């Protein structure tokens, strides 16, 4: 099963490599990983997506918790939560395709953030499935490049992941 896990880490040099090293050393799957400092610059928050059976995911969470730099951990998939991912897509936009692409951008509530005679850069935020759907919807052959951040997540309701 797919799990999306939030980890609050000490914002120390090397904290990220400890997490990455843990996954490779123990052979765990890692689908995506995003990390940046929070409002408190001494802390980083990481969102990590992994896939595994219950036993494996349980062990992943224990191993993450065991890292000395880990302050707190929450498996967002255990409750209601929101996921958002940012994607930028560069597409070939020759005259004949421009209208079709603009329509798609509207339907997906995306934005065009760079324009040339022959290309657009489209920015789109949403859950990962929505981003997948956009990529599928772009006519074949028009995509030049895609960059995605991987999902970040937060739980619903008043409770927060903090000290």
């Amino acid at each position, binding site marked *: 099963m797919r799990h999306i896990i939030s980890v609050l880490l000490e914002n120390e040099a090397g904290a990220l490599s400890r997490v990455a090293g843990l996954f490779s*050393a123990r052979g765990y799957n890692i689908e995506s990983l995003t990390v940046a400092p929070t409002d408190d610059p001494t802390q980083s928050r990481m969102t990590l997506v992994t896939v595994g059976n219950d036993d494996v995911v349980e062990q992943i969470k224990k191993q993450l918790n065991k890292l000395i730099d*880990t*302050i707190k951990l929450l498996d967002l998939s255990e409750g209601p939560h929101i996921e958002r991912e940012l994607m930028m897509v560069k597409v070939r936009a020759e005259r004949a395709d421009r209208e079709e692409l603009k329509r798609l951008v509207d339907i997906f509530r995306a934005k065009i953030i760079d324009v040339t005679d022959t290309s657009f850069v489209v920015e789109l935020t949403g859950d990962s499935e929505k981003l997948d759907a956009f990529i599928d919807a772009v006519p074949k052959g028009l995509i030049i490049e895609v960059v995605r951040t991987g999902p970040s997540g937060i739980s619903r309701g008043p409770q927060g992941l903090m000290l």
Partner: protein
Amino acid sequence: MELSGAEIVVQALIDEGVEYVFGYPGGAVLHIYDALFQQDRVKHILVRHEQGASHAADGYARATGRCGVCLVTSGPGATNAVTGIATAYMDSIPMVILSGQVPTPVIGSDAFQEVDTVGITRPCVKHNFLVQDVRDLAETLRKAFFIATSGRPGPVLVDIPKDTTDPNVKIPYRYPREIAMRSYRPVSKGHPGQIRQAVEAMLAARRPVLYTGGGVILGEASPLLRQLVRATGFPITSTLMGLGAYPMTDRQFIGMLGMHGTYEANMAMHETDCLVAIGARFDDRVTGKIEHFCPHATIIHVDVDPSSISKNVRVDIPIVGPVASVLEDMLRLLAEARCDPERAAIVEWWARIEQWREINCLSYDRANDKIKPQLAVETLYRITDGALYLTSDVGQHQMFAAQFYPFDQPRRWINSGGLGTMGFGLPAAMGVQLAFPEAQVACISGEASILMCIQELATCKQYELPIKILLLNNGYMGMVRQWQELFYESRYSHSYVDALPDFVQLTESFGHVGMRVEKPDELEGALREAFALKDRCVFLDVVVDPTENVYPMIVAGKGHHEMHLSPERELA
């Protein structure tokens, strides 16, 4: 007090109460060595190879329960120490490793003797630090000792760039006594509800087994374990790492379990209906094939590290907490429930265990003109009254020692279990002997293992360490040869130890006493003579039967009930 970084390092060691630092100098740590030179509180032991430093610090920690400390230079100094760090990590030994690093401005430039020590050691330490500012040094060192010795212990490395130890940069020094880390708070007590549930299962058990491990020793819980065994009347078995936590000569001890454990211990594991695992981590050498592991049991597991629980074997009643505190809670509940150690079910269970015991699975052929390794260990036990601190290398001799030298106290049996590091025994014995100058310390080894850290004989000479080395010389990497005999149709590929040195001459050239023993009837006399030389390091090269194998044995992929006793004695 204003101190330089180098002085801070030394003063912090003093403030931690560190007795010995095992180390080897080099460019990146010269400032620290200079600060060491100018004081006499912390004693520095000069090893002959950094692997020796890490093993010696480890041996010191295993024997005393205190934190071992070693100091190495950057680059090759640090990489040489890695084997010892990984060894300590696998067996959860508290250790602080100080490594020199190139100065901060040149880090990353492939400077002379630069390696990414933090990167190299990351997977084999509990935690590591790179000090980037002399002002962080004292607090980082305090954290390192705190992390190494609390919770599940383990090695912590502090990488110290040379410029942070600059003798010309002095800053105010204050060593933090207490340290609070928001990201690291080891549990101090087990969950009362879980403990209650565990005790209920124990009271209802008909065929219970206590399966104990290194965690009992690490958690200083031997006295409580003894009480638990008495209070419950349960049989107790131990892993290789837990030997001595409970007296091995006691009737309720049914021997080591696992691959080379006793028949009675492994059969009891197979039939138990209530397994109480205490400070043990369900290693594959212990469980055998997981599908066959304790098929009838409710499994209780006490461990301070949540990630040990249900890692290899799914556990029914997990208890996360330090052994000592959990055992105290258990004992109180057992007393309240008036637990009867002689209730009918337990008496019946013992009758069954005694039947397995009668098989006498450790018997061997005594009438032989060659010295059997088992006989050598038994004789060692007899003439030392079982009172040794015994370190071991890795191989058949290690297993024979575990089987034939019953330890009655914790911290007396010192060996590398998790990593199985050949070369561990001799340097580890140095750490033990320094910790306990008056104690009898011996190292049991094989002719292949001993050569891996033989240079430490010079350290033994420099510090006059009267260690006794018992070499079970079978001319082979016996453990490898045994597997090749059993699983590769006796194709002994590169397991014959050719071109051996003359160990007597070798030892004597280091300034020690060397002796060679070839016949069974010379053995006891030679051992007595060696141990009578109280202030000398003695190397006994004992020529043993090269064909002997370690039995009983559970081969890979088999269950506890599928043991082999020996080729001559197969079970029905």
